[in-house]
């Protein structure tokens, strides 16, 4: 049984799993409906077929199988040719749009010449298989090579210098837009020398659309998710509202130079000189909305903002300006881990509030029923008892980014999933060299920023 809103998806999903399942569809939604309504659904008709619902269930269990049900045919998509049929530029742009191979924004057409140029950004063989991806949980995955990644990088407007980072993202085999109805979002940030080598922004406005590298790397992840992760609206992607974060996936570089703490990748055992990308999955990012640690220390403000989250995964990530990290260090947090331990110990939530979340119902309650601690013990507590749901301090992350014009931060429910090597995808020369004019402009911008900081009298 599946609710009627998912009739088309369920049938297609079953076929993609190699089965011709028999479905019955009660009306949608079931969640939050009173018993009397659920009883009416049971007594009533399947809105998809128009037939009485429960007799249809009996029929599904007793009607003899058809030949197709006994011997389902493999659902194998035809291999896709490397090249599309030649056409005019205008028609090809229309073809990409109409086939939903884009994010709706204009793309750069991946001609053979452009893809060949893009491939100068890596030492990897174009035919090397990078991985397989699907945005669904268990449907058939699509396989992709270095060349396929380069094609999507061209479409995103990237240059060869960005390709090693985009290949690292592709190697994660994680899509940026999971199929879920709940409209996931992702975050990705880069550590290590490649940040400067390709001109990523880790300073002023790093999460806003002002930087080529940040923009095209984040966008490339989304285009790869569409084309390599088989993201099709209403067929595999079911996010009800979707998320604006899906356009760029909060892509930035960590401001290692202005942070009082060790870089994120060093905290996780990588060397400072290694270039890596760390990726996260969650739903939301809440700005600290003007809170700057003046009236109330930042860590106390963080406790207040965290009340907005269901604490489902027990994981949070603070994305903070260097000023916030400095302020927190002055408060006695010498490492992000110490902040995580403090948050873990001091954030409290009534157990009734915790288990009252729909997400916890779906993912936390099964753990409680299965006897997994601490959920099983929490389940037995009176609703008003306070619990500390972020019980694993190691899942509380901090990353430093920003231009030090305000001590603000984002509180996010982003859970760290992977940190991936960028260096393994570099060309032999280290990185594709940008043109001198771009380098000169970036250096001038950095110099202006450093001079402004110095003139302000502020120094960490």
């Amino acid at each position, binding site marked *: 049984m599946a609710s009627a809103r998912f009739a088309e998806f369920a049938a297609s999903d079953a076929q993609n799993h190699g089965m011709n399942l028999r479905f019955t569809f009660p009306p949608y939604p079931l*969640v939050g409906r009173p018993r009397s309504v659920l009883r009416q659904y049971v007594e009533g008709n399947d809105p998809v077929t128009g037939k009485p619902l429960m007799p249809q269930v009996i029929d599904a269990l007793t009607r003899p199988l058809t030949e197709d049900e006994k011997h389902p045919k493999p659902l194998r998509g035809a291999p896709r040719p490397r*090249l599309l049929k030649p056409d005019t530029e205008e028609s090809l742009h229309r073809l990409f749009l109409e086939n939903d191979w884009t994010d709706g924004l204009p793309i750069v057409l991946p001609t053979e010449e452009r893809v060949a140029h893009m491939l100068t950004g890596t030492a990897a063989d174009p035919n090397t298989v990078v991985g397989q991806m699907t945005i669904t949980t268990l449907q058939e995955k699509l396989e992709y090579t270095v060349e396929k990644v380069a094609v999507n990088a061209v479409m995103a407007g990237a240059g060869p210098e960005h390709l090693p980072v985009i290949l690292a993202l592709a190697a994660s085999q994680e899509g940026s837009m999971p199929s879920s109805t709940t409209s996931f979002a992702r975050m990705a940030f880069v550590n290590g020398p490649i940040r400067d080598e390709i001109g990523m922004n880790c300073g002023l406005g790093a999460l806003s659309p002002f930087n080529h590298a940040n923009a095209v790397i984040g966008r490339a992840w989304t285009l790869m998710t569409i084309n390599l992760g088989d993201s099709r609206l209403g067929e595999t992607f079911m996010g009800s509202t979707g998320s604006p974060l899906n356009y760029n996936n909060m892509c930035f570089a960590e401001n290692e130079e202005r942070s009082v703490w060790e870089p994120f990748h060093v905290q996780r055992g990588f060397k400072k000189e290694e270039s890596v990308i760390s990726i996260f999955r969650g739903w939301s990012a809440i700005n600290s909305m003007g809170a700057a640690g003046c009236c109330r220390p930042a860590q106390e403000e963080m406790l207040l903002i965290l009340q907005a989250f269901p604490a489902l995964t027990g994981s949070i990530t603070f994305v903070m300006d260097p000023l916030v990290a400095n302020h927190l260090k002055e408060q006695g947090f010498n490492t992000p881990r110490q902040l995580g331990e403090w948050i873990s110990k001091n954030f409290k939530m009534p157990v009734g509030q915790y288990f009252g979340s729909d997400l916890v119902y779906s993912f936390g309650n099964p753990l409680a029923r299965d006897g997994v601690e601490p959920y099983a013990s929490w389940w037995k507590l009176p609703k008003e008892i306070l619990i500390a749901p972020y019980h694993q301090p190691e899942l509380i992350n901090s990353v430093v980014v920003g231009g030090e014009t305000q001590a603000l931060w984002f509180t996010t429910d982003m859970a760290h999933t992977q940190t991936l090597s960028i260096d393994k995808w570099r060309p032999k020369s280290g990185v594709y060299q940008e043109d001198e004019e771009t380098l000169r402009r970036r250096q001038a911008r950095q110099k202006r920023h450093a001079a402004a900081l110095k003139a302000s009298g502020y120094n960490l």
Partner: protein
Amino acid sequence: MAQMTSQAARGLRVVLDPRGQPTASVQPSALAPRLDTLNGKTVYLVDIGFGGGYDFLEEAAAWLIRNIPEIQIELRHKRGNMFLDDPELFAEIKERGDGVIFGVGG
């Protein structure tokens, strides 16, 4: 090369397909044989964990008992979340059950 030159002369562009390759990794699976009747049979109703699903299945179980008095119903929560298998329960159903209804998706 001559063909490419000709295409270029006609204003045509050659571009690469951006999509990944199907892997044919999913193997087809036949449905289990059907029952002649539900009378006297044991049917499992398995809640997979979406909100409202268990309550709905309780109502469905009550309907089945009202309308097929000799049916035996086993109403269960599947262990883990909706995306995980429950090998222990699935083995039990194969051993002790005659039929199973999974629900409620979405």
